[in-house]
């Protein structure tokens, strides 16, 4: 019996070598890089995007506090559509509006802040408003920039817009409804896209446009993809939320 116990010797240990440890470290680093790629192309924008949806909807329900019992509306207000309210641009990096695009999903609800600075506006997940362009409701161009991927990927699906899709800008006053018209691809220097009348330098605007700009292709800064929309109508808060985005707005509140 004692013989048997004695015979059970511990397994021989493999010696720890420099090369062995180095190999294990490299494998670990490889797995971490793989995990980061998964984060960058997939998980990150889901986490940050959901966070942004929540922040924007909190702001939206704060603005809509007094009108929570107004039913959704199928049409904008005719008189206000002719001359919608025009807000005053806030200080740099301050949020003042939300963007809602039904094509991007029933929970898509993203904050718009003043300015297009990389660190103070865009990397915080905001959609940035070019400060040289007009405010929503004013004749001219309401031009926005945001990340295609990373930072919530607010404009990830810009290429998925169909002609006739609606784009809504929500402010404390109500909702500006725009209709998507077309996409354009330009070089990073193509500043004509944010002119008061896009790509028509020096022309006096008689309409209200929205321009969304982001980078193209994915994970590259070689080009810019541009989406244009034209203003349709204005939905004041007192008239109720546009029926099309009731799920975006009320699903949150």
């Amino acid at each position, binding site marked *: 019996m004692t013989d048997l116990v004695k015979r059970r010797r511990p397994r021989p*240990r*493999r010696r*720890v070598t420099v090369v*062995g*440890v180095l190999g*294990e*470290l490299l494998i670990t680093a490889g797995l*971490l890089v793989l*995990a*980061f790629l998964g*984060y*960058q192309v997939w*998980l*990150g924008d889901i*986490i*940050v995007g959901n966070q942004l949806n929540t922040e924007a909807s909190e702001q939206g329900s704060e603005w809509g506090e007094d009108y929570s019992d107004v039913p959704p509306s199928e049409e904008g207000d005719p008189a206000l559509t002719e001359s919608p309210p025009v807000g005053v641009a806030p200080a740099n990096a301050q949020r003042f509006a939300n963007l809602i695009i039904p094509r991007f999903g029933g929970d898509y609800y993203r904050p718009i802040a003043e300015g*297009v600075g*990389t*660190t103070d506006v*865009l*990397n915080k997940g905001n959609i*940035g408003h*070019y400060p040289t362009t007009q405010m929503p409701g004013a004749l001219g161009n309401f031009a926005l*920039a*945001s*990340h*295609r*991927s*990373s*930072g919530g990927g607010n*404009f990830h699906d810009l290429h998925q817009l169909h002609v006739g899709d609606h784009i809504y800008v929500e402010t404390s006053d109500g909702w500006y409804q725009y209709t998507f018209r077309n996409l354009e691809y*330009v070089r*990073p*220097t*193509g*500043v004509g*896209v*944010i002119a008061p009348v896009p790509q028509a330098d020096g022309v006096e605007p008689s309409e209200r446009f929205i321009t969304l*700009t*982001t*980078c193209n292709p994915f*994970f*590259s*800064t070689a080009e*810019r993809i*541009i989406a244009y929309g034209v203003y349709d109508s204005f939905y004041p808060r007192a008239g109720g939320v546009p029926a099309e985005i009731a799920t975006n707005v009320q699903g949150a509140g």
Partner: protein
Amino acid sequence: MYGALWRVLPGPWWVRALILLVAVAAILTACVFWVFPWVDTLVAPQDVTVDG
């Protein structure tokens, strides 16, 4: 390195495995919420605006 870690951990094999599982989960969580967002700002395309 990992062999040594396995031997240092106490308990039967399933306790060790559980400890490692929790440790890996904690490390991945820290990566996803703090490390990766920071790395992302260094490697992701930063330039999304048009300018002259």
